[in-house]
């Protein structure tokens, strides 16, 4: 089963991918680290920030690791570099 999701890149991760967002097809059941590896396979330069990012799925933070996610069509995924608002 695969599903189509929107991926948003911010700050350093947007500079590394050259993209603000894209729509991709991924496995609908996977872990956050598998989702990250999928993104890195599309944008190898992303591996530079492996240790400093988390993901957001449906606008909720998820650490990279053995964390299971179920994705549905139209879900938002985001790559979240260290925050620096305020």
């Amino acid at each position, binding site marked *: 089963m695969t599903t189509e999701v929107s991926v*948003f890149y*911010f*700050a*350093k991760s947007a500079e590394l991918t050259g993209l603000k967002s894209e729509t991709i097809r991924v496995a609908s059941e996977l872990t956050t680290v598998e989702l990250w590896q999928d993104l890195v396979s599309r944008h190898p330069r992303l591996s530079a920030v492996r*240790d*400093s*990012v*988390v993901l*957001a799925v449906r*606008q909720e933070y998820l*650490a990279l690791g053995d964390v299971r996610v179920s994705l549905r069509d139209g879900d938002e995924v*985001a790559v*979240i*570099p*260290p*925050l*620096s*608002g*305020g």
Partner: protein
Amino acid sequence: MAEAEGDPRDLVKLTHDKLSVDTVSDSVTCPSCGAISIFIGTTRNSFEGMKVVQLEYEAYIPMAESELRKIYADIRARWPTVRHICVHHRLGVVPVTEASVIIGISSPHRRDSLEAVQYCIDTLKGTVPIWKKEVYEADESCWKENKECQWT
């Protein structure tokens, strides 16, 4: 009294426009409150000896709004007398000395809004998906990292 004045307001604005302290202050004013506490974050002119020309902010806007509303819910649980809460955060280019963020909170007595404003800026820096790039003289730049961010 509270009912006559309408509901507590939870106000959020992310904007490319210049921020106004008076606007934030007015938006949290209420007749039953004796105290308004405000925090203004402004752009500094240097970082570790390098001259900062300007800052650029970007946000994951819908998630930033929802994370701010989580902070507001925390504030209302911890300081139940807090009346109105307002955060304005600027996006895009912010010149030196201009405000990047203004937080305003009103309460009947001052201790609550003073503590809540401090909690709000501390938590905002750790949880709200907004990013700042410092642009230095000579066209260098650097994405910043808040020390409040938990995962780095």
